[in-house]
């Protein structure tokens, strides 16, 4: 495998992981644009813009984009998060040039009024869809409560009101500012014709307008500590979400934090699993560590019968306390490392995963660690490192949101 990175004259970063043994080519544009870049009036614009990139460019109609994606056999999708928007497609190597041209064209959408107002209805449907699905908008509510005015508290989809109030002009201004080549990374992995790729991208992106990307505003985190209940009368289960501070994407303790989260709350084989899931007390009990540029969170999620909620919650809190008093053992650390390392090694074989890995790393860090280097970082984590990170981030300052049919028992 050969990793290489390039910077074009227009400022666009191109990262490549070429493996001639691969059967596919995976391509992705990573844009530093997410909910955290939006003002309150623009809430939801990053995600709406992601949809609009599929709705037509000066060269192609929406139908032509969709037809060409399918014609290239492209397994194509896009996602918007708090900090980034990613457009990606995986194709047979023979279609490398065409898919790079198409995705590059999509990065400069027309944003026509007609398409804008049709797609607005689709977004409102998407918001309604998530309101019907567990945890019924609970994720957005707890992020807002925990982060307060910090940009990470903004909902990725926006709200019915904010999406309905968005205009094509406001979206175009946002696009000019965030979709500047210097604010983007093109990531390509699998079987790649590198010289052709570089020659192509130079041409496909040469007319992209440039803008000085605005620096991200990072206000101080509110880190609210409290409890809320969201009543959903038709829910059959009770869901409990919890947010507590964790290391950021820049924090050297993040590898230890990920292993500690696995030992405590991985979806199989963890302390939470054996006590709450294997025993059948809860349908779900897991903790994940999410890393952002400026901060990180440990997010816990529990799901159970409403009548069991109080008991499950009290066991969960007892396990949290016990985790501090009875820190992880060598055996637990060994198991967590084996799982983390095996999952990295298997994922590495899929071109699409490689593309996500190098693209995300470059966007976040502006540098790249090989899988072997990351494996080594996990191997080096000691029990002392785990102890240190659990003491730095003890899951004691936490925001909790319960969602269910009836708050009386909560």
């Amino acid at each position: 495998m050969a990793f290489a990175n390039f910077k074009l004259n227009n400022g666009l970063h191109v990262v490549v992981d070429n493996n001639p043994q691969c059967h596919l080519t995976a391509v992705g544009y990573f844009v530093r644009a997410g909910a955290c870049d939006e003002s309150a009036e623009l809430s939801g614009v990053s995600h709406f813009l992601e949809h609009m990139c599929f709705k037509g460019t000066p060269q192609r109609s929406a139908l032509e984009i969709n037809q060409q994606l399918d014609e290239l056999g492209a397994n194509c999708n896009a996602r918007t998060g708090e900090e980034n928007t990613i457009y990606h497609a995986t194709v047979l190597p023979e279609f490398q040039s065409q898919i790079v041209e198409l995705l590059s064209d999509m990065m400069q959408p027309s944003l026509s009024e007609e398409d804008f107002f049709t797609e607005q209805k689709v977004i409102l449907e998407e918001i309604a869809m998530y309101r019907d699905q567990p945890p019924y908008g609970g994720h957005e509510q707890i992020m807002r409560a925990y982060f307060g005015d910090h940009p990470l508290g903004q909902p990725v989809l926006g709200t019915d009101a904010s999406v309905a109030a968005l205009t094509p002009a406001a979206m175009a201004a946002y696009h000019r500012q965030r979709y500047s080549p210097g604010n983007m990374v093109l990531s390509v992995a699998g079987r790649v014709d590198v010289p052709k790729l570089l020659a192509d991208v130079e041409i496909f992106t040469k007319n992209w307008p440039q803008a000085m990307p605005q620096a991200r505003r990072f206000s101080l985190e509110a880190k609210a500590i409290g409890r809320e209940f969201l009543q959903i009368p038709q829910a059959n289960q009770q869901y409990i979400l919890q947010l507590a501070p964790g290391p950021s994407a820049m924090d050297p303790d993040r590898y230890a934090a990920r292993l500690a989260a696995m030992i405590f709350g991985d979806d199989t084989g963890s302390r939470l699993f054996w006590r709450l899931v294997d025993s059948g007390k809860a349908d779900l009990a897991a903790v994940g560590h999410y890393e952002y540029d400026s901060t990180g969170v440990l997010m816990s999620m529990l799901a159970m019968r409403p009548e069991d909620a109080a008991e499950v919650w009290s066991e969960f809190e007892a396990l949290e306390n016990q985790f501090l008093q009875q820190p992880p053992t060598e055996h637990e650390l060994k198991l967590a490392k084996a799982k983390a390392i095996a999952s990295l090694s298997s994922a590495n074989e899929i071109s699409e995963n490689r593309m996500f890995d190098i693209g995300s790393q470059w966007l976040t860090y502006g540098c790249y660690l090989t899988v072997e280097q990351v494996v080594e970082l996990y191997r080096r984590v000691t029990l002392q490192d785990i102890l240190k990170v659990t003491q730095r981030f003890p899951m004691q300052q936490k925001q909790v949101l319960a969602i269910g049919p009836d708050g009386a028992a909560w």
Partner: protein
Amino acid sequence: MPADNQFQHRFSNGLVVLGETMPWLNTAAFSIQFPAGSAYQPLGQNGLAALTCEMSERGCAEYNNRQFLEATELLGASTANHVGTYHTGYSGTCLQEHFLSVLELYAKLSREARLPSDELEAARMVCLQELYSQQDDLPQQTLRTLREQFFGPTLGRWPDGELDELESVSWAQIRDFYRERFSPQGMILAIAGNFNWNECLTKIESLWGDWQATSALGLAVTPGQGGYQHLEEDSQQTHIGLAASTVPFGQEDYFLIRCAVGVLGDGMSSRLFQEVREKRGLCYSVFAGIHSLLDSACITAYSGTTAARAQETLDTIAAEFARLQEGIHEDELRRIKVQVRTGLMAQQESCRSRAGAIASDWFYLHRVRTREEINEQLNRLTVPRVNQYLADHPIEISSLVTVGSTPLELPHGVCQL
């Protein structure tokens, strides 16, 4: 003719082992299928297969529940289980150097599960929890009801079980189901990835070769009824599922209809995506596909949309089903062919999906298709052949399920049989 990297062997006890080497990978994967799916449960015991599967993972031979899971995790194996209509299956992937050790663990699970009676209630709760959580998943409830309605009470049963039936399953029923259905007779073991076939086969013979088969039970099938069913839910969206009978996978005409259904509802240029979402903005999610069993199959379509726009969504979907009979176009067929080719190449990067595909081919076709064979089949597909088939075989929507606040009007021709 199998390709150079494909292997197969049948042991005298009935066990079929299928292999495909992928030396460019560092990993290997297995898929073990036992004829212990939901269709084989006695009527009134839906949940027996799921509970037996859950109990089978709670310790075997010298391992207790926790020791077994930890042994697989220490070997870096990523494993899963699945209960389907015909099979209970176990699958896993790991680095090649641990592959034989992981197979050894699963041989113990399949032959010497402890089925610990003191863990029965915990195992039952795990299965019940799964069903409880599905009650909040309205798209899944829609598709579940549609499946039961279309395929009937034997084959259409939801493999995760039925609440009241699961509650009454006994330990003795689990023991008997395990003894009868976990047997080399009808068992398929597919392996794919980086391994040495001869070395693996020798190991597999030592693990399963002396296992005696139990007599297999047949399957008496009660067909489904079709019709329209509305489930009242206080939800923002109305969920729509519909089904039409078609030919199952394995029959000659399957590829013709599979291709037509791809044009109808698979991908962003598909007719449903274009007409329902792109032109009218009626929904976020709309798609169609084929759900195939051994001897029966249906074309299914799903969409979820806010209540006020549900009728228009259903009418548009029904109109697109009707329009399909007029035929498809060259550009549509071309797109479907590339999609299939890309999907085939994607399997070359994942030994796990390749192992699953090999096992499935064997079950439905009694052989494993090579990539060349599928490509030839694709090349033989032409617009006139697909359109002739569509003209000769009108698609009739016979089952409709809606979940939401109000029932919908039946469009012309829907559920009119």
